[in-house]
């Protein structure tokens, strides 16, 4: 039981990271109907930006406050990653709008390859690591010899995820931009007729998706302390699985899907074979696609005429 509780704690932490990335997939899919295969690598790039920021802060400026350096890492990663994703949309996707459906998909795969290769060449192919930023933990309870703990890192991840999801929900549900985004998602032609700049709204969507991925990237670096150029692909596909499981296009679905994938992966590693944890996560993708293609929160794909 204690072991199980510990796995749930770990799984929710991992799931938070997947959920934040999954929102990016689901938002972009919702608004332009495209699976942005580069999104995992955008996440990986953001982790590198956070890592580099951390190194600059500690070595050049000698900042020792954990809160300050984490905050600056987060802001810097969000800012630069948003800029990168904005540029990607502008260069690689917008010119292909109105082209055949496969074209932006191929372009996205191209951007994915470009990003991971760019990071590999500029940062080197080896794992980059940083010393642990946040240490310490709460011991929730101790049973026999096994303590169930909640580390400070996990608390930070849960807290930041919760705050960002609340802010993000507010943005989508209550602001002009959110309303414009939902309008573009439902009917772009009509959105333009009421005076919404559709291109700008789509660009804003990419910026928000990247900012959330950057939060995930920063927390990934803080949590694991290590990142490599190849770390975009697998977390990216898992977050995509989360989005599909939740119902692609559905924002709550992405969050719930992320948490579920995180839990499934962690519990599988704990009770079965850790070597096959990726197989477990991807089996979920296959099973979802076969038995529940619209996902948990998705709308059935019918067009009302």
């Amino acid at each position, binding site marked *: 039981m204690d072991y199980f509780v510990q796995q749930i704690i770990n799984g929710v932490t991992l799931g938070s990271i997947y959920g934040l990335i999954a929102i990016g997939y689901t938002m972009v899919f919702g608004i332009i109907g495209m699976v942005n295969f580069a999104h995992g690598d955008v996440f990986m790039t953001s982790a590198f930006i956070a890592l580099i920021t951390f190194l600059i802060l500690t070595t050049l400026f000698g900042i020792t406050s954990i809160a300050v350096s984490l905050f600056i890492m987060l802001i810097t990663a969000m800012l630069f990653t948003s800029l990168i994703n904005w540029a990607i949309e502008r260069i690689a996707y917008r010119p292909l709008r109105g082209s055949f459906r496969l074209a932006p998909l191929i372009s996205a795969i191209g951007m994915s390859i470009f990003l991971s290769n760019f990071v590999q060449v500029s940062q080197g192919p080896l794992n980059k690591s940083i010393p642990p930023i946040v240490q310490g933990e709460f011991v929730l309870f101790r049973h026999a010899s096994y303590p169930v703990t909640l580390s400070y890192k996990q608390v930070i991840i849960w807290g930041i995820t919760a705050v960002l999801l609340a802010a993000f929900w507010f943005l989508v549900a209550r602001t002009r931009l959110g*309303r414009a985004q939902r309008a573009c998602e439902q009917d772009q*032609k009509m959105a333009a007729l009421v005076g*919404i700049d559709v291109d700008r709204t789509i660009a804003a969507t990419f910026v928000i998706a990247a900012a959330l991925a950057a939060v995930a990237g920063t927390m990934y670096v803080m949590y694991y302390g290590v990142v490599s150029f190849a770390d975009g692909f697998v977390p990216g596909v898992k977050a995509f699985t989360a989005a599909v499981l939740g119902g692609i296009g559905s924002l709550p679905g992405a969050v719930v899907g992320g948490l579920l994938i995180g839990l499934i992966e962690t519990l599988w590693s704990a009770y079965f074979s850790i070597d096959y944890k990726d197989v477990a996560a991807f089996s979920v993708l296959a099973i979802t696609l076969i038995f529940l293609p619209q996902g948990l929160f998705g709308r059935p794909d019918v067009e009302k005429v």
Partner: protein
Amino acid sequence: MSTPLLSVRGVKAYYGRVQALKGVDLDINDGEIVALIGANGAGKSTLMMTVCGDPRAREGTITFAGQDITRLSTHQIARLRLAQAPEGRRIFPRMTVLENLQLGATTADPAGFETNLERVLALFPRVAQRLHQRGGTLSGGEQQMLAIARALMSSPRLLLLDEPSLGLAPLIARQIFDAIRTLNAQEGLTVFLVEQNAFHALRLAHRGYVMVNGLITLSGSGRELLERPEVKAAYLEGGRQRAAH
């Protein structure tokens, strides 16, 4: 004569490879209700959408309020306060009625939102009752009223209405025509409407145009057109088949 509010000159437009407009000339003056009638597939809706920049006119010019809008994009044209309740109503189905109206006010001054909302809802009490319901759950007539209400939320200088009575019960259609007449009489709103229901449209309108195969073939006051034998034969006495061929 003063310059017209909307002026369409020699406009040609295509849908894919099909030429839908073959050189259309048309004027709408401030304060007028103008009806465009014609058979299915004549290009009426295409003309409405071309005025809004989607599809763009390949040739010719469109001038609105003294400004050339031929090359502007759709949202820029909307910002000049030219609103459209398009074919098929296009209510945002998964947003509430209120959100649909807020979207209609995208180009309007936010300070005037509340007053404008009250004014529009007074005109369509049935929409007011449904404010927090999702757009997709409304009946056809309510959706049409919402589509017009949404367009009015921008306080337009010109309102384009595409088939406002299509598929509606006669009583509801009459309510909508009454609302248009009221808006025109009380607020001087300029309205350009496309209708298949030629009889009602021409009775409502000050002037009318008849479109056949992407060209304007007749124009005149509403009453004149109602009296024209070719209009009677083609659009008023069940003679649509003959008009098409």
